[in-house]
């Protein structure tokens, strides 16, 4: 009590302890996971031609909004990125930047054969694989996948978030820490790298 430090303590430690007490309780964990899973807003980032099927997913026939997924305008307010098909070298930088602009519990769905391993363009000189750019949660085969498939992928991602407590762990730990993208950002956006 002699020193002023005793009152305040280390602010970081205190904050972390408070967060652990708040979020460590099981119900709050569940609330975070539940809320995140039913509010997966995909950001508007159209990378390739699967975007037509992405658009069809949010059209009246399938209506992705019924699962709580509302395509939204800017990256800052969203938490889901759907890679719609091929990612070219020029687009890869935009994908990574968008991913980095999104706030923390965030997820990615790679849609289409091209997003898996190149698909029809496997030997093209101008593509990168999305998993080299950002960490992917759900892979979705098909060329292009039907809209029902994408809706299914969204539901699968919701289940994954709830059953594996992805979102709450992320909020508590600060970073999910499983997969790291392969290519460093300087190579994607610097125009200089010839390796990719």
């Amino acid at each position, binding site marked *: 009590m002699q020193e002023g430090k005793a009152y305040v303590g280390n602010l970081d430690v205190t904050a972390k302890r408070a967060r652990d007490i708040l979020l460590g309780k099981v119900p709050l964990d569940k609330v975070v996971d539940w809320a995140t899973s039913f509010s997966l807003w995909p*950001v*508007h*980032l*159209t*990378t*390739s*031609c*699967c*975007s*037509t*099927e992405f*658009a*069809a997913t*949010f*059209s*009246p*026939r399938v209506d992705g909004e019924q699962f709580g997924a509302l395509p939204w*305008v*800017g*990256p800052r307010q969203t938490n889901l990125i759907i890679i719609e098909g*091929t990612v*070219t070298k*020029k*687009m890869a930088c*935009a994908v990574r*930047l*968008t991913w980095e602009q999104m706030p923390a519990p965030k997820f990615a769905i790679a849609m289409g054969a091209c997003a898996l391993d190149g698909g*029809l*363009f496997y*030997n*093209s*000189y*101008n*593509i990168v694989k999305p998993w080299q750019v950002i960490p992917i949660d759900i892979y979705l085969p098909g*060329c*292009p996948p*039907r809209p029902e498939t994408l809706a299914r992928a969204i539901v699968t991602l919701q289940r994954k978030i709830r059953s594996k407590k992805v979102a709450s762990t992320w909020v508590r730990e600060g970073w999910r820490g499983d997969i790291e993208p392969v290519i460093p950002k300087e190579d994607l956006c610097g*125009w*200089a790298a010839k390796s990719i």
Partner: protein
Amino acid sequence: MVEDVRIYGGWKDELGLKVVPSKKIGKDLYEVFIGPQHPGSGHMRITVRLDGDIIVEADPDIGYVHRTMEKLGEIRGWIKPIPLFERMAIHDACNITMPYVLAVEKLMGVEPPLRAKYLRSLLCEINRIGAHLYGFAIFGVFLGHSTMYMWAMGDREVFIELAEALTGARLTHSYPLPGGARRDIPADFPDMARRAVNYMRKRLKEYEKIFLNNPVIRSRLEGVGVISKGLAAELGIVGPNARASGIGYDVRIVEPYDAYPELDFEVPVFREGDALARTMVRVEEIKQSLRIIEQAVEWLEKNPREPIVDKYLYGKYPPLHKKIMESEGRAKLLPISAAMKVPKGRAIGRAETGRGETIYYVESDGGVNPYRVRIVTASARNAIAFKYVLPGHKIMDLPAIYGSLDYFPPESDR
């Protein structure tokens, strides 16, 4: 004012490429990047320089979906590029591969039978409606009219189902073959098509009520983004955008292909050249496409079924494949087509896709692969419009002009 000079893009010395700065930018201009992650752009970027609210300079930066179609087309034989080229305009798949097929047919000297021609034209028109509806949907979003998006997208599903019934695939039909088509119509198709046509006619009236005659939408479109006839010819604008500027140019008339010489249809032409005219051209085209579908379905129903591949090629079919063709109306791909050789020569094939004229220049050196495939799609030719039409407009007109040009980046970037 000219002190703050930048060379844009920053692509100068790294490569030794000669980069010419397009303009010296003063400090008082405001530079906004629209895209590629931007709700107002698809897969492209427009660098817009603003003086207050007015666009002074627009620089379209395309190529975000460049998937190297021309190069890959050179190494995949003669048949396999068809599914490859489809991916350029995936919702307009039959139309976009049609010119390639026509060019290869010209080189091979084969001619599909009339029934196959009708089948191909039928699918082309179904795709055209789908492409226009897709364009409307995107246009609706750009103008903040989410209902138009949902309606157009929902009604597009009707025609996607129609195409699915005909070809078996939702979007990527791979339907036309050099010298034929892949499948004959199923038995219940004519009825389905007629119902779809009637439904769409009814819906078009509702579109007019909520979108085209909506006072807000009209005030956003009238007199915006005017492309005069001369400018359209100078820039080489194609398709509905050119026809909205008073240029009566349609490949279906200029160099008729497939069943179009036999069909009765009109090509809508408007004189105003503004965003509203470009929208109305598409509405009228949907009506004409519905007419074509009706006629084609009637012809296909009335006339007896016949093999839907070229006679010369059909003669090479093994008996099993012939049997499949007679019983099911399906054209099987021959094993020899994997290593098919096409006579030496150069050919240009072209067709009117949903967004305008698409040209394929195909050169063969007599080998198993095309020697050179040059693709110039409609969107690729319309991309230049952004640079010359946008300046002088307000920034809020950008989505109206972008949407009315119906620009589809994957098609443009190839």
